[in-house]
């Protein structure tokens, strides 16, 4: 049993289908990032998981329980951070933590104090008077302090400056080292995702069209540059796995989504016999952009 399991999930808002037959498993101990453009269905998926929205069809399970039947027993082990979520803004940071603490038998007061100091949160300031970044840190603290088994983060880095972003990320990483947890994270901030996640799921129009470990993605995607010089070149009918294929003068560039030295270089030689071929690793951000720009269809092929 995976801590997070989503099966054929569909969620409609009137006529608009925000999520369409989405299936996703997040294994225990992994950090999975949901990536996708605005409106891809990331937040909706997370809200269904937390029972903030009912599914139209299909099901989402957390810790083996249907999200519609989540009880305080499960919720004591689940942390949810969303920048858009209503908070008791009239409370000071201290009152907020005092309010949250009794709900969780596993609340770690020492960790609370450590994170309070690390995040440099003013305990006597009201949540509504905190900056956006401070507010996210306060919410995150209220979640990390009870060492959840499952952590769901919805755009936790949105609108944060680099320093706060670093604080949040390192806070997450440090806490992760101390416990075995499963994280599902929806974000646009791919640099942070690359540091945190070991798995990504790409969403578009409410559908998952890629679900893979980060390691696998980084291994199989390469940016290939072909220097044609004066030789012949066959630039039509390139393999579907070559994304963003572009020719500028004597230079051809593409992203190979199934790179291997044994396969890619012979394929290049067949089309560009006298060209110099170089392949360099890509970041997750580059891979995401390549996949996003090349469109879902080619992405499916790429996957």
């Amino acid at each position, binding site marked *: 049993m995976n801590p997070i399991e989503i099966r054929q999930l569909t969620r409609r808002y009137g006529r608009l289908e925000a999520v369409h037959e989405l299936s996703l498993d997040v294994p225990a101990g992994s950090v999975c990032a949901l990536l996708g453009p605005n409106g891809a269905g990331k937040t909706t998926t997370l*809200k269904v998981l*937390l*029972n*903030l*929205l*009912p599914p139209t069809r299909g099901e989402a399970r957390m810790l083996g329980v249907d999200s519609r039947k989540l*009880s*305080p*027993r499960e*919720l*004591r082990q*689940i942390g*949810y951070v*969303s920048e*858009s*979520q*209503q*908070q*008791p803004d*009239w409370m000071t940071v201290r009152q907020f933590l005092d*309010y*949250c603490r*009794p*709900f*969780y038998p596993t609340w770690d007061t020492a960790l609370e104090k450590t994170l309070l100091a690390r995040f440099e949160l003013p305990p006597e300031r009201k949540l509504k008077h905190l900056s956006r970044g401070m507010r996210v840190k306060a919410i995150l603290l209220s979640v990390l302090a009870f060492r959840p088994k499952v952590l769901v983060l919805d755009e936790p880095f949105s609108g944060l400056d680099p320093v706060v972003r670093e604080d949040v990320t390192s806070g997450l990483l440090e806490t992760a080292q101390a416990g075995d947890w499963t994280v599902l994270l929806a974000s646009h901030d791919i640099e942070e995702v690359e540091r945190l996640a070991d798995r990504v799921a790409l969403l578009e129009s409410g559908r998952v069209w890629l679900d893979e470990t980060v390691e696998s993605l980084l291994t199989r995607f390469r940016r290939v540059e072909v220097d044609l010089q004066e030789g012949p070149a066959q630039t039509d009918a390139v393999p579907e796995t070559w994304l963003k294929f572009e020719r500028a003068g004597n230079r051809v560039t593409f992203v190979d989504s199934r790179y291997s030295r044994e396969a890619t270089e012979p394929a290049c030689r067949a089309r560009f016999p006298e060209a110099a071929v170089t392949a360099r690793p890509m970041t997750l951000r580059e891979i995401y952009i390549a996949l996003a720009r090349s469109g879902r269809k080619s992405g499916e092929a790429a996957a």
Partner: protein
Amino acid sequence: MKVVWHIFRKDAFRLRWILALWLALPVVQMIYVGLAPLPSPEQKNVVEVIRYFFVLLTLIQAVVSYLLVMSLIDDDLLAGNQAFWPTRPISGRQLLGAKLLGLVVLLWLAPVVVLAPWWLAHGYGWPELGKAAGSVVLTQAVITLIALPLAALSPRSGIFLVLTGVGLVSNLVGFAAVFNALRVSSEVQESRGYLCMALWLATVMGVTAHQFLTRRTLRSAGLFGVGWICIFCVLCWWPWDFASKISWSHESPLAANLTLQPQSALVSSSQRGKTTYRVFNLNMQLAGLPGPYTVVIDSEQNTFSWGGEISKLPLTRFSGTGWFRSVFDRMAQAVVLDDKSIAPMNALHTGAVIEASALAERLLREAPAYRGVLRGRIFQPVVVADLPLRVGESAQRSGYGVCIEAVQPKETGGIQFVVRVFSAEAEPASIIPWTVGTRSSTAVPEYNFVVNRRRGSISLLNDSEPEMLGCIGTLGVYRQRFDYGAVDEECRLVKVVFRPVAVFERTISSPRMEITPLSR
């Protein structure tokens, strides 16, 4: 329970200032009535200003109370998908428990606690305290029952206010239309009223519980809509009478031997302006009432039948206390003079039904079988104040108080004296001119006497129109002026109030009631 208490404490802490301000409103009234000198009788305008100030404060209390319900729910939203609490280990049941605890403790009981010293300071005993606390709790409960479902369905306070406005307008229009079209007997109307109240209660409880337990706002709103449709359907079309079969009150031992027997019936004519009405009069013999008590019939249902054909009188105007004024007068005087020989009011009792024109001819033509259900109250005369007739003297007992503010000679001879009166028989709604409180609508006679016990003289003072100043949590504050000839040092002002002590219900019947025509 720990979670419920934890959330309740959070809500109480959050609302502490607004609650304090809300509870301070009656305290302001108390301080004013207790400390500030009331304007002199000549300052009519000031009296009016004070009166409307009290009305305003009472309205503000009601409105703030309504908004407090919203505020209590608003911190843990039930509608929308951005609420904080569903992502924490809090079940809908626990949250419902916490909010109900908050409503009961903060909005129902807190005003009672604030007002209790005030009531006690005005001589309230346990019965008056219970009644006053019940009245405050009932008022708060009604406000809560209106606000609660709307608050539960609103994802934002703005939407709550919009729903309130829409609900207010649509109900006013809807009920006005329905009431104009009502053409049913009073028993069916009463039955519809009971059923609508029960449906409203069920709707509120159903919608609130459903929303707390499921957070499915659309379905809850659907339930709310269905509830309202049912209420309107019942209000328009419910055909059966069950109200006449309901007895709400436990009968007191005082009424155990009380009997009412029909003696005679007659139909007369009555002129009102240019219209002539037929009036059905029923005379009954009252017996078995211990003294010194009196009886007032509050309502009745009359059924006449000729074989299988039944006719019910749709409108009843039973005799009020005016019919027995002399009995009340005698009783009041006897209690002041401690006259033990006073007899119970086992006298003839007359009731009248006006606008029985359609029925009158038949009643006269053919003697019907008669069955009547009468509900009434038993009153006991009580001396609530007995004090020397001097400025500054005051006395209080059983929720009534009298304070003599002024005794001044009149130019035309004699004196006029002004008293400030506190009365437990008031209720907040009664101070608002366009509403009628249920208790204040019943004419319960109060008597004021000037007594000289040494000389054995007793003079009934003429009633003056009381100047209602305000009402603080069921304690009405008003002023009365009395003219009197001359007083000496031994004269005392004695106030007698007829207090309701028991209720009763009697069914009377006659297999053949002979009805006599009587021309007036």
